[in-house]
């Protein structure tokens, strides 16, 4: 079982490019359809929780499955399996890059890539704003958060803590009065 878990999650860790959510269908194909480790409904539930929790989504969902099947040792097994391919590949790249980053060819390639990457982070900002239902009434939240981090140098962790706490306070004290 451990080997099957390990093998499955290595494969999952290996085939997602860019973002954990794109791998959901892949995980479902193995975990729900092929091995039947969880049923469809439970899977959807786990995905929702894994997405809401902090940490890397792919790791979170791996741990849920691993724990369900073999408790703590299962969880550790799947977590390591999901992280291992990235870890090894990136480590090799980092080691290689460290040697060559001053090479003119490499430097010019990345000088071109960097502005593109900034755009690739800017795009999801707008998409996320739409899916988070940002409107005229709540746009102050991301705005103040962004200004605090960008101009005031506030550690983003504090923004997370404040926002979570704010949500709690809103639900407990403000919404009941509306």
């Amino acid at each position: 079982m451990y080997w099957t878990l390990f093998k499955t999650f290595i494969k999952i860790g290996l085939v997602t490019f860019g973002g954990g959510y794109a791998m959901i269908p892949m995980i479902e194909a193995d975990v729900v359809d092929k091995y039947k480790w969880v049923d469809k409904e439970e899977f959807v539930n786990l995905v929702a929780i894994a997405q809401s929790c902090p940490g890397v989504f792919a790791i979170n969902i791996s741990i849920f499955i691993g724990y369900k099947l073999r408790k703590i040792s299962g969880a550790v097994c799947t977590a390591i399996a999901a992280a291992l391919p990235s870890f090894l590949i990136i480590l090799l790249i980092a080691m290689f890059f460290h040697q060559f980053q001053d090479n003119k060819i490499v430097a010019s390639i990345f000088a071109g890539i960097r502005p593109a990457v900034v755009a690739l982070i800017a795009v999801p900002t707008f998409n996320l704003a739409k899916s988070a239902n940002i409107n005229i009434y709540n746009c102050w939240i991301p705005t103040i958060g962004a200004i605090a981090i960008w101009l005031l140098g506030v550690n983003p962790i504090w923004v997370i803590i404040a926002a979570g706490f704010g949500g709690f306070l809103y639900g407990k004290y403000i919404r009941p009065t509306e």
Partner: protein
Amino acid sequence: MIFIQLFIAFFEIGLFGFGGGYAMISLIQGMVVTRYHWLTVSEFTNVIAISQMTPGPVGINSATYCGYTAIRNAGFSEFTGIIGSLTATVAIILPSLVLMIVISKMFMKYMDSPIVQDVFSGLRPAVVGLLAAATLLLMTPENFSTPSDPWTFWISIGLFIATFVGTKLVKINPLSMIGCAAFAGLLLLY
């Protein structure tokens, strides 16, 4: 020393990293660039770029890369750098391990409770702010040059706009956009 700082930094990132990979970028940036200066802005942007091009979640990729590079930048050997990448990667995974197991064991039924949902509803808009901040913080001379170097500056701006439009409106695959940008960089910015 630096290994302890590395561990604590990435543990915190794993613990507070709500909202997925992109939000995590903001946290990693806050630690690795702003707070500890382990990487420069351009080095960090390179990490994000590499993460887009390689398999695996951006959180794991960043932890591994930043861990290695931070230790190497501090003057340690290649082998010690590997220990650094291991430290950061384990640190970012650890909170998930503890949290997911605890939730599986006891708190699964509380995930739907109003209080938890309220907390998440507060986090959702904030994560948008985190992404916006991450984008803004990456708009630096290191990544775009300055008007005093107009060739590089305007090409960088052009690449930004092209990628933005290409990804958002034309829905071109991000990987292809990076490929084009790389090619453009080689041709124009050599």
